[in-house]
């Protein structure tokens, strides 16, 4: 929606690229836009046309589970909000007319065209229902395909993926058995505005399935000729199992059939553990061979070997969900051909260098992000999307547009409060638990409420249009939106209000979703009462809200990047090439972090030399104009967005003034002291030490003086530990396999002891298969029975319980390599947390503002994070985040000013007696005692330093300080409203 209404973004839908010429900085692209037959500028999405259309078709968005008409809106929150007519189904298209009719229509068209008149009138159409029904004359059958020629500096390919066609796996019966569905189909069922309003049903008889079985890796990891991993399916199935449990208590059993449980991202393992704790699903390791119809009635039987219990099973299921892999989009290959970029062996858009490129295609000036490059989870897609924005900017220099704001005529908001209450359904997120219409009626009955209404999604473009319309119609001067948490959409609503001249601070939100319907679903009556109380309290506060106006401060248009590893280097380069002054501060004497010698020799999956990659990056950094400070640390930092002041301590001392800060100082590695004999046995090393040893000898592998003939790798050392770091460190599986493969190729016996193989990065799964093919032995162990390193004075073997074999084994070894996990750099994290107040998560890494919506932002404006400082990840992801952070910073630095929050504290000089309490309690030195008359002091608060916490307001003994937007009167009114008599 933000995209749809941005003045600099032109959304061209129903269109595709048909030609592309030129090169980076100067592409000439021809786009063919198919007609919608509905005028986008006129359609108001009222839906009247749909009611009158006589033709039914399958709904693509609901994957055929729901019907639509020939005229339809693709999905509830589509941008633009206009409807579209499908020429394949609409009766008016030539295919339905006889030859004679076609001739007649053509003749009329010609005649009318000469007279510049609209050729098709409703009564000349085969079917004119929608045209007649439309009250704004938006239906236009005269629309023709349009060719649009664009001149652009850069191209971004984000064509996503399509589902693997599960019909290719005949043994799973998709297409034969109606109760075998794909993960996308069940998503549509679970979705509030989908087919069944969030309820899971068997397509065959619309009853609730009692037993659901999820089959993972359908179309991935070997099936159907595709070896790659589809990355998101494991977590998706776990999430679906939890949602199903919540929505449908009649579901008795959910089983997930997996091979490796790939919970690789931040918080993923904790989520899976929660699923296990809550028993949302039973996890069985096995890949089914076939699905057959069961004996009793319509149920299905899934034939699978439980590889951990060593049993052949026939699992009865009422519904089977195939977690289908992401496949390249059908049109991707031809698009790639048009653009002159390469695709990989599967048909996904190829990255320039799989070891390090996050978003670069094989051609300069053309970028790619999201699942177009291969399956991705959402946080990675979002980081990549921001990253391309940073990269593409390089080709757009000279076209920067200044912020143009049309001055808006402010609405007349004077007079007694006239409150409008908008209660949101949020699909079924709220409506599934609360009676929303009743809440609206209740709100309407409250004093000072001029109007109250309910809406499916107040945040959608139609919802917001209705909001604005009601404000104008009822001359509202206060708005209460009862919906989600203000922390999500308050800025969006505020902006909508500001655009129409309504002061954005006259908005109050009542949190009836995150803090009501979502958490009191088991107590519906009480939840309803609570929602009513929250609305009553919201209206009470709204009555006392005052219009506030933003101030402005200058923005220091330069940035500081802390940490000279690959992430820091990328971020600094991306910003500097745009012309912003950037300081890159590195504590040690060299840049490169973990990529520099002797830390990493080769990068997976293509074994590129780390030194070469680093050299390329450093060259770009050098020519970018960024200023590099080596042997320098940040001694202190104060300030806020647009106005940070950092004291650098290095060979010299320097104070820098910057507008934004990027934290990219990386992470530590787990120290396995005492584990597996590390520290006592000389031939037990960490993966990092192993890597370093590779530098010492080109021809042979020699570690600590040992030339091993048999090497054992132990994975997950220091990760996935309920007593320590519970998460996955993400980089260790591919690193260990890379190392194992190197050894195996030299004829060295290699064994890998693992819990789950999480080869997530591009090319890593293929590397895993290659390792297996080269004879690397993979032994699956149980987390509660760790392998034991045995030997006298040195490691001689590894004893373990092989979970797949079901037996204890002893593998002789000359060298044990421990794949150590990543750890937060606690000292530096604590220091920068103190300086900047950016939150730190429970895992010790910096906390992103939102895992999907804001993966590289912190809750503190102007402070960004990139790379392993946010959590374990590998090089490609760190580079993506670094570019993403640079993109976000460049948005700030693009302007000369930063807007000031007006919700600050103010002193009433008539009440102030100059006691100085406010000065004492404020951490930000905002209040100052000013001598008004000789001997008489009064406090004044500096609005640019005040953070709006309101502490001074609560301490002032005279009650002289008002904490704007969170005034005493507002709070007291809310307390009163809590206990007010019920008005029904």
């Amino acid at each position, binding site marked *: 929606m933000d995209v749809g209404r941005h003045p600099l973004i032109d959304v061209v839908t129903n269109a595709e690229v048909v030609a592309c010429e030129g090169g980076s900085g100067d592409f000439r692209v021809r786009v063919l836009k198919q007609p919608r037959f509905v005028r986008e500028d006129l359609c108001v999405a009222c839906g009247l046309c749909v009611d009158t259309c006589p033709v039914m078709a399958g709904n693509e968005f609901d994957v055929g589970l729901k019907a639509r008409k020939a005229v339809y809106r693709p999905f509830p929150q589509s941008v633009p909000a206009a409807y579209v007519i499908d020429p394949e189904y609409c009766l008016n298209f030539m295919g339905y007319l006889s030859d004679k009719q076609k001739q007649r229509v053509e003749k009329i068209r010609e005649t009318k065209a000469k007279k510049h008149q609209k050729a098709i009138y409703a009564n000349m159409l085969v079917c004119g229902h929608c045209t007649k029904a439309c009250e704004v004359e938006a239906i236009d059958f005269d629309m023709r395909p349009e060719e649009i020629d664009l001149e652009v500096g850069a191209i971004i390919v984000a064509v996503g993926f399509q589902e693997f066609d599960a019909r290719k796996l005949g043994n799973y019966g998709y297409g034969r058995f109606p109760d075998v569905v794909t993960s996308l189909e069940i998503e549509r069922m679970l979705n509030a505005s989908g087919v069944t309003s969030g309820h899971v049903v068997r397509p065959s008889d619309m009853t609730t399935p009692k037993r659901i079985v999820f089959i993972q890796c359908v179309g991935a990891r070997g099936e159907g000729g595709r070896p790659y991993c589809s990355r998101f399916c494991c977590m998706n199935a776990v999430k679906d199992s939890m949602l199903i449990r919540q929505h449908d208590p009649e579901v008795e059993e959910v089983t997930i059939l997996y091979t490796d449980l790939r919970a690789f991202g931040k918080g993923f393992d904790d989520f899976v553990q929660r699923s296990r704790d809550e028993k949302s699903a039973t996890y069985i390791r096995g890949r089914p061979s076939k699905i057959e119809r069961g004996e009793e009635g319509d149920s299905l039987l899934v034939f699978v070997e439980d590889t951990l219990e060593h049993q052949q099973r026939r699992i009865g299921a009422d519904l089977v969900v195939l977690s289908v892999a992401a496949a390249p989009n059908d049109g991707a290959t031809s698009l790639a051909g048009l653009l002159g970029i390469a695709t990989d062996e599967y048909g996904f858009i190829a990255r320039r260098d799989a070891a390090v490129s996050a978003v670069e295609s094989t051609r300069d000036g053309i970028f790619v992000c999201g699942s177009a490059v291969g399956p991705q989870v959402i946080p990675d897609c979002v980081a990549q999307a921001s990253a391309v924005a940073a990269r593409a900017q390089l080709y757009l220099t000279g076209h920067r547009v200044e912020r143009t704001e049309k001055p808006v005529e402010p609405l007349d908001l004077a007079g007694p409060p006239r409150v409008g209450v908008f209660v949101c359904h949020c699909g079924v997120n709220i409506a599934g638990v609360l009676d929303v219409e009743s809440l609206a009626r209740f709100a309407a009955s409250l004093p000072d409420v001029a109007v109250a209404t309910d809406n499916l999604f107040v945040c959608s473009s139609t919802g917001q249009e209705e909001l604005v319309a009601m404000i104008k119609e009822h001359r509202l001067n206060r708005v209460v939106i009862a919906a989600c948490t203000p922390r999500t959409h308050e800025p969006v609503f505020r902006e909508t209000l500001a655009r129409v001249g309504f002061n954005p601070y006259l908005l109050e939100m009542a949190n009836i979703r995150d803090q009501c319907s979502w958490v009191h679903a088991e107590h519906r009556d009480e939840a309803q009462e609570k929602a009513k109380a929250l609305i009553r309290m919201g209206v009470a506060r709204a009555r006392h809200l005052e219009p506030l106006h933003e101030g402005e401060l200058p923005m220091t248009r330069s940035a500081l990047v802390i940490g000279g590893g690959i992430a820091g280097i990328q971020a600094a380069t991306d910003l500097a090439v745009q012309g912003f002054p950037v300081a890159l501060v590195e504590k040690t004497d060299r840049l490169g972090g973990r990529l520099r010698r002797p830390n990493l020799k080769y990068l997976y999956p293509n074994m590129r030399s780390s030194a070469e990659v680093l050299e390329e990056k450093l060259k770009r950094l050098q020519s970018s104009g960024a200023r590099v400070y080596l042997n320098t640390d940040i001694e202190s930092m104060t300030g806020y967005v647009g106005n940070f002041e950092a004291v650098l301590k290095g060979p010299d001392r320097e104070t820098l003034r910057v507008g934004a800060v990027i934290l990219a100082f990386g992470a530590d590695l787990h120290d396995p002291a005492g584990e597996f004999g590390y520290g006592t046995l000389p031939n037990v090393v960490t993966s990092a030490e192993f890597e370093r040893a590779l530098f010492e000898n080109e021809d042979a592998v020699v570690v600590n003086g040992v030339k091993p003939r048999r090497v054992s790798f132990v994975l997950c050392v220091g990760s996935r530990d309920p007593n320590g770091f519970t998460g996955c460190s993400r980089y260790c599986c591919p690193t260990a396999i890379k190392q194992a493969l190197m050894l195996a190729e030299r004829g060295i016996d290699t064994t890998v002891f693992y819990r789950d193989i999480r080869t997530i990065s591009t090319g890593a799964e293929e590397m895993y298969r290659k390792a297996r093919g080269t004879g690397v032995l993979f032994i699956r162990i149980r987390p509660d029975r760790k392998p034991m390193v045995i030997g006298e004075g040195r490691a001689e073997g590894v004893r373990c319980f092989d979970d797949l074999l079901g037996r204890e084994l002893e593998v002789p070894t000359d060298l044990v390599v421990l794949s150590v996990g990543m750890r937060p750099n606690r000292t530096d994290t604590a220091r920068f947390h103190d300086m900047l107040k950016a939150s730190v998560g429970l895992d010790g890494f910096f906390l992103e503002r939102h895992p999907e919506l804001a993966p590289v932002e912190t809750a503190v404006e102007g402070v960004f994070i990139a790379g392993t400082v946010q959590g374990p990840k590998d090089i490609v992801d760190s580079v993506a985040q670094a570019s993403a952070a640079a993109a976000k910073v460049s948005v700030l630095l693009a302007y000369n000013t930063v807007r000031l929050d007006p919700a600050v504290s103010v002193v009433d000089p008539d009440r102030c007696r100059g006691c100085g309490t406010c000065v004492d309690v404020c951490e930000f030195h905002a209040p100052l005692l000013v001598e008004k008359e000789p001997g008489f002091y009064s406090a004044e608060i500096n609005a640019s330093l005040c953070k709006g916490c309101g*502490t001074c307001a609560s301490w002032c003994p005279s009650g002289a300080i008002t904490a704007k937007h969170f005034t005493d009167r507002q709070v007291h009114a809310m307390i009163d409203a809590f206990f007010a008599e019920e008005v029904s």
Partner: protein
Amino acid sequence: MDDKTGHSAKSKGSRKSTSTRWNPEIVVFACNWCSYAGADTAGVSRVQHEPHFRMIRVMCSGRIQPAFVFHAFEKGADGVLVSGCHIGDCHYMFGNERALEQFEITKNVVRILGLEEGRLRLEWISAAEGARFAKVIDEFTKEVRKLGPSPYGAKNSSAAWGKKATA
């Protein structure tokens, strides 16, 4: 209640018993950055918990002055929970320490007013601690239930027994 999700509407008759059961009314003062966000996190993670409380959001726990707490009890609150960021983690650096200082004063006065100690509680809850927020609410609700209706609340009949639960 409509039938969208397949759950049958409860008949008014069967609700009678629940509506005459006394439920505590708890006011929770929460800071925007940590505890209110923690409650949202509980929401996002769908961690179910007791519903007998209402949140009042302020920017910082330092904003929570004794007068707010007294007013809540005066109106008949059975329990008041003051929450903010963990010490050392305040978004405004030391606002929560100010809150702690004021809380000592508040606690004293509340005691003098004759309210039981268990009715007023201070908790530091971070934005990530959704599960903990839910746990605190459940525990506090349980404790307040044991204490029964506030001695100041009995006067306010709408806040205690016999309130009709309207849909």
